[in-house]
């Protein structure tokens, strides 16, 4: 290759390197600051200590972490249970109003989560269900906003499933229930796991919805950190931020051992 054809690529590499620094630096800074020995969040840290991590595991914050974990896991399971029949109906059947239903399913992804949050709060107030906001109200909201991720991912794996597999099973005498449990479900297992994972992550990192549906006793860790930030950027909050990053990271790493996630991150072109 001649020299002038190499140089633009080198420039591109430099640009890309700087982009990575821009993307990762603030996150790394937060993690480093949480190990600071001083009482202020400064970078580079004034010595090292684990005191802020110790404080981050106080009973009060622990309960917030458990609440968030419970909320996001339940959301992931419910999204998969609700999303599977929805994806199945949309992928395998053509019916009047199908486009409208797709719009309805993707809606929570398209419209501002903030508005859905206020609207839900109003609905809960008016109808009297979940009169005191907390886990129940959060759960309903989180299932609504995380559902699109589950449905899309499950749809991708259903689209990759040859339709004649079912015909083959049926011709060999399997009934509908057997086909579903013994043929389809094992084949789309990856899609189900990935869909549940994306729903979990979306729920775990949400702020805009939880902001309105949390109660004083029941607030996810993101909202709780945000509330405390108003009083100052204490290093404990940096440690808690790091925890709220490490949990989804560990979950992704654990899932990745058994499931290829890359196939679902940016969906392949439909046939």
């Amino acid at each position, binding site marked *: 290759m001649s020299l002038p054809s190499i140089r633009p690529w080198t420039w591109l590499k430099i640009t890309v390197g700087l982009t990575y620094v821009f993307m990762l*630096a603030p996150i790394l800074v937060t993690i480093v600051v949480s190990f600071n020995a001083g009482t202020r969040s400064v970078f580079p840290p004034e010595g090292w200590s684990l005191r802020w991590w110790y404080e981050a595991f106080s009973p009060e914050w622990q309960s917030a972490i458990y609440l968030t974990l419970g909320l996001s896991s339940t959301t992931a399971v419910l999204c998969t249970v609700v999303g599977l029949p929805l994806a199945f109906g949309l992928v395998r059947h053509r019916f009047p109003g199908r486009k409208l239903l797709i719009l309805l399913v993707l809606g929570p992804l398209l419209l*501002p989560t903030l508005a859905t949050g206020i*609207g839900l709060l109003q609905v809960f107030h008016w109808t009297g269900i979940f009169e005191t906001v907390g886990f129940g109200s959060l759960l309903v*909201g989180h299932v609504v906003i995380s559902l699109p991720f589950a449905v899309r991912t499950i749809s991708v794996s259903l689209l990759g499933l040859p339709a004649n597999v079912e015909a083959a099973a049926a011709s060999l005498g399997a009934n509908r229930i057997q086909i579903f449990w013994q043929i389809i479900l094992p084949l789309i297992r990856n899609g189900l796991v990935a869909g549940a994972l994306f729903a979990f992550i979306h729920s775990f*990192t949400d702020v805009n919805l939880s902001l*309105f549906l949390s109660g004083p006793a029941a607030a996810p860790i993101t909202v709780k*950190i*945000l509330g405390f930030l108003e009083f100052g*950027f204490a290093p404990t909050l940096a440690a808690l931020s790091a925890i709220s990053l490490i949990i989804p990271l560990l979950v992704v790493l654990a899932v990745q051992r058994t499931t290829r996630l890359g196939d679902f991150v940016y969906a392949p072109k439909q046939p």
Partner: protein
Amino acid sequence: MFGVHWILIAGPALFLLLFFVFPNALLLSASLLKSENQVLTSKLTLDNFGFVLSKAHYQRAILRTFVVGASVGLLVAIISLPISYFLIRTTSRFKGVLITLSLAPLLASVVVRTYGWYVILDRFGFVNDVLLNFSLIEERIAFIPSTGGIILGLTHALLPYGILTNLAALSSINPNLETASMSLGENRCRTFFRVVLPLSMPGLVASFLLAFSISISAYATPAILGGYASRTIATHIYTFIMQVLDWSLGATFGAILIGFTVFILVLMFRFGGRRLEL
């Protein structure tokens, strides 16, 4: 008669109608209702919009929200294109790792990402320390809270979405087109600008509109990096709903956000190469 698909979709569809469509419809209708002493009445009125649009204080917040949205959209589109192009075309054996690393920030909530910016940009933060050390400034500068801080923080937060959008769009460009262009005597730079760039337009437009639509309703970043001096529609909504308890004005701002988001979505489906598919 009813086929099996109706049984499959009826439950989930009902759930979404109840807890997604109904709340948003309620919000839109509340913006058209008069409220007296913080209680909604059944009187239809456009006063809420008149009030919000006539106060200079709120006008500035609305203007700021859209300046932020447009700037963030532009920056996200411009920054995410080169890295996406690199990730699609690189032959490095670390390609998989690099793609993962570029999307990893999605695992961090906005709160985590904004905290880092505070430490970097604060009056007593990293950048000020460095500038003072090299005597480039004499007095500490307050970079945040500011509108610029909001734009920076949101660009950072939404970059992975831009990369995802551009990766999807660029992956459909045939690499042979670039080889052909170079074999016909164009250099790599001109090939990029005359062959790749026009073909990546739908991805660019889509990432601009996506970042625009998400950033106008972002709450955490403006709240932390914008503060009380640089308020946006979203931070006003929070104050109205959670602190002042004025539902109709909160709903009015919410309706403005929904209206503009729908407008952007229409543009996205029209020009961003998006189709309404799962």
